[in-house]
């Protein structure tokens, strides 16, 4: 009984404190994730839709697990990009998780694909690699892991839509040279190490031409089996 009285007293005090806080919010920034991630927006857009800079990726709608892994990798410096490493260095895990979920939950429209600057032959080579791979050279198809609609799979595999060719090409290059790495087994490092520069150009160009499918959401975990192990997507 005494405990209950004390609990109600505590509740009253808490509510009173909330009232006080509410009265002050007029002079406080909005208590929202949107206001907290404003530091991300000059490069990634207000809702993570990307900006006119082709090297900055779209974040919106990617699986939260993928975005969280990237935030952790930027924070520790495993994934190297000084402006990102610097911004995230002293932010705690739960906050990075909240940021990942915020951008995963945003669904601004995909931009219309930009006309490609490469030849039809190069695009055809990109399509071939992306949809069928090249078994002779141990190159799996992009769609075998990133999904038939290239929308990714929960929780860790990103969709590849809405990205510009220079960004995709830079990331594949970073994997080939080892400046972008992920948890072992680092599947993308293995894949990228089998690609030539011409392969990278072709596949980046073709991916950038893909129109938005009706359902852009990443598919559920376990919808299809991965053909090889991937540290970012535990089975």
């Amino acid at each position, binding site marked *: 009984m005494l405990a209950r009285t004390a609990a109600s007293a505590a509740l009253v005090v808490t509510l009173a404190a909330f009232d006080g806080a509410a009265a002050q919010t007029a002079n406080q920034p909005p208590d929202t994730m949107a206001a907290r991630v*404003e*530091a991300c927006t000059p490069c990634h857009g207000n809702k993570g839709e990307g900006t006119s800079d082709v090297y900055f990726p779209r974040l919106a709608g990617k699986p939260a697990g993928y975005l969280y892994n990237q935030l952790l990798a930027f924070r520790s410096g495993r994934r190297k990009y000084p*402006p990102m490493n610097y*911004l995230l260095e002293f932010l705690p895990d739960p906050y990075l998780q909240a940021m990942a979920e915020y951008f995963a939950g945003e669904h601004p429209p995909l931009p219309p694909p930009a006309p490609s600057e490469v030849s039809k032959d190069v695009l055809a080579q990109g399509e071939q690699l992306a949809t069928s791979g090249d078994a002779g050279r141990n190159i799996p198809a992009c769609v075998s892991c990133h999904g038939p609609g290239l929308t990714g799979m929960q929780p860790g595999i990103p969709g590849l839509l809405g990205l510009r060719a220079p960004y995709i090409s830079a990331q594949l290059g970073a994997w080939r040279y080892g400046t972008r790495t992920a948890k072992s087994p680092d599947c993308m490092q293995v894949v990228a190490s089998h690609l030539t520069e011409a392969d990278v150009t072709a596949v980046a160009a073709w991916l950038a031409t893909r129109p938005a499918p009706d359902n852009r959401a990443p598919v559920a975990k376990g919808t299809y089996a991965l053909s090889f192990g991937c540290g970012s997507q535990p089975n």
Partner: protein
Amino acid sequence: MGSKLSIALLALAALTTVARAQDKNSDVIARGEYLARAGDCTACHTAPEGRLFAGGRAMPTPFGTLYTSNITPDPETGIGKWSADDFYKTMHSGRFPDGGLIYPAMPFASYTKVTRADSDAIFAYLRSIPPVNQKNRPHELRFPYDNRQLILGWRTLFFSEGEFKPDPTKSDEWNRGAYLVEGLGHCGMCHSPINALGGTSQSDAFKGGLIPMQNWYAPSLTSNREAGLGDWSIKDITDLLQTGVSARGVVYGPMAEVVHNSLQYLNDADTKAMAVYLKGIAEASSPPPASSTLPNTESSLLISLGKTVYDKNCASCHGTQGEGKPPHWPPLANNQSIEMQSAVNPIRMVLNGGYPPGTKGNPMPYGMPPFAGLLSDNEVAAVVSYIRTAWGNRGTPVSAREANELRSAPLN
């Protein structure tokens, strides 16, 4: 029967003694962990994604790269074979157990002030953490700095060995704050000017300086025109130290690391003691403002362009009068960090943006966007000139060249 009972009682007494000893031991370890936080040991002795205190972190210096050492209790590669005496000697004298000289990147010039009891507690804590077998990586220093004998010269000039001596004319609280700030906190490592020899003279302690290799300006803790806290309330100081944000401003750059790894873990009494001491060492009367060259045509033009840039990009958070929405969106009016003579920090904040550290008291901080990609050198110089001179701020205009030079400042 009687003897059995006394044996049982004796056994019980023995067990209680053991339990008490263990309690006492775990108390010492807990205190050691707290003090290791106060000393921010982890900032250097834990590598990114590395095991706790296993070392191996690269520390770039003007003289080459140092790699921090393994201070886990591993007997082969860590400090597992050290005694408490060895550890105290390292902290107090800056020498390895074999007498070898330690590079002064290890802040032994501050740690020398730490008491023997505190050193023993930190050592007991370090003995209690999991050992990690990881060999120390050799330093990569350029000639002639790879010759450790040079440290002798440095020590003669800049090192005075000795535990903290309380000032009997000051309160216990002031002295506790002084002990933490000057000793484990090693605040002087950044907040004092560093000369070409990598040292600081005693008379320059806490007078501020540009941090080598990082290109952030660590403001003076004694001048109210910089980060002197003379006209701050104790609450604003403790808020800043414990949570990273306050009604007067937020921490950023290297100070965000200090709050994140160290200061947020200090208890209220110690934080307040540091605040009392820091407020106490600020100069009572403000020195005259930095010589302001009368605004020539160029700087009036800059400031006028700066207002346009400010109203478009900054005012939505920092307010049309620079009032901000403290503590999360800091005020820029009457903000020492904006006005001080060195404009390095405000220029870098505009270019790089930044988040205050996530702390127990402020787990989801608000961040400032980087404007490096959005504003030209001229616009950066203009907006920084504007905020340094508007609303009664007494800073001086900055040039586009200064803004341009800081675009290449290291970010990590």
